[in-house]
């Protein structure tokens, strides 16, 4: 088996240059590559295009990279938890492309799966359709949407092995499996890194072929956005 292990987040991201296109896994703050984001902050790389469903919150996740002005453009579906984001957007400092969430997920899947374009009904008749090819199939209208790829994909998994196989946990899986496949270089950080052979081959969410580098993450904060509880 091919060994994909690198020593640290800093080593994993060392060749990410200014103006790179990145994908970052996560839905809200759940499943974001915390270690990778910290390393990007340390490296100070700028002009990034970040493809991520959300943009973090003011002081966590991608929100930290917005504060340091490292992000030139966000490609997301929902960014409504972030005042700094809204400020940069309204002032024109930040480019933003908003994409329906299912279209975003499928465009990323298409990027990994070698499908340059596909048709979806989402957004037909709305401003999302502007400039896009429209076509009718079986009496329903659809938009043609193109694949999304990235120079680097940063994903965070629950468990991973030295061959790059990944298992996610709960709803922290979200966009990460598709992003892992759509990144030219995919960097996986994991809560628990094990030798190849220790994960059940039948339970793997992301096969190692999609992962170029993997490292043992540390100090996960796993911040919760909406802490909703009930009494026992």
């Amino acid at each position, binding site marked *: 088996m091919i060994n994909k292990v690198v020593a640290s987040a800093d080593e994993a991201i060392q060749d990410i240059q200014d103006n790179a296109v990145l994908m970052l896994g996560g839905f*809200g703050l759940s499943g974001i590559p915390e270690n990778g984001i910290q390393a990007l902050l340390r490296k100070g790389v700028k002009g990034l295009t970040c493809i991520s469903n959300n943009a973090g919150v003011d002081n966590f996740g991608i929100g930290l990279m917005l504060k340091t002005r490292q992000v030139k453009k966000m490609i997301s579906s*929902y960014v409504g938890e972030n005042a700094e984001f809204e400020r940069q957007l309204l002032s024109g400092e930040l480019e933003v492309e908003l994409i*329906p969430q299912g279209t975003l*997920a499928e465009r990323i899947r298409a990027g990994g799966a070698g499908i340059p374009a596909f048709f*979806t009904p989402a957004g037909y*008749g709305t401003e999302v359709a502007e400039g896009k090819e429209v076509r009718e199939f079986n009496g329903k209208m659809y938009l043609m949407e193109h694949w999304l790829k990235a120079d680097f994909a940063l994903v965070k998994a629950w468990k991973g092995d030295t061959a790059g196989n990944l298992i996610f946990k709960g709803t922290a899986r979200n966009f990460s499996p598709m992003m892992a496949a759509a990144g030219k270089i995919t960097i996986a950080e994991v809560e628990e890194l094990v030798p190849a052979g220790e994960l059940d081959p039948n339970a793997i969410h992301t096969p190692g072929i999609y992962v170029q580098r993997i490292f043992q993450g540390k100090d996960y904060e796993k911040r919760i956005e*909406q802490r*909703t509880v009930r009494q026992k």
Partner: protein
Amino acid sequence: MALDKNQIAQRIAKEVQNGQYINLGIGIPTLVANYIPDELEVVLQSENGLLGIGPFPTEDQIDADLINAGKQTVTMVKGSALFSSAESFAMIRGEHVHLTILGAMEVSENGDIANWKIPGKMVKGMGGAMDLVASAENIIVAMQHCSKDGASKLLPQCELPITGIRCVKKIVTDLAVLEIDPNGGFRLLERAPGVSVEEIKAATAGKLIIEGEVPEMTF
């Protein structure tokens, strides 16, 4: 008297049918789950990758890796399944989810819905709403009949950027239950208890269709 949020949710819960897979949007729609009768077998889908949403966790059950689409901590029920966002929207786009309940800023009399953007003021993004309204076989909107400044949200046509066209089937507001007529117009089905047809007329800017006696809601 106009309904409160919980009463809107309670009235919508009556629309739920046995055996349905249901996606509940953020806000009032999330509250619907509290009113679905126990004898109905239904499954709640969360578009971030969960079928079978359970109640909120107790303090000691909280798991940062288990949230709903509103980023709230949740639990799973027996028979839940977890999956990726691509699989989740395959379910939605492929019309496997039977019922979508979501909020709106505006609904037009032909069933258009606007709920994602106020130009120059608010840019949060559409999230999964555009996918949901483009594909669900039944879409029910939960909202206030009028905005805070008293303007009707049931319009001849939407003024805000729309989320989807000709997709809304039914609307439950604090004042009324209405369905979109296939030929255009809000057909008034039920009044909130104590709310008159005249009050609903006054609060509806779009074409209101009234036929015969309009009964009061029951819960």
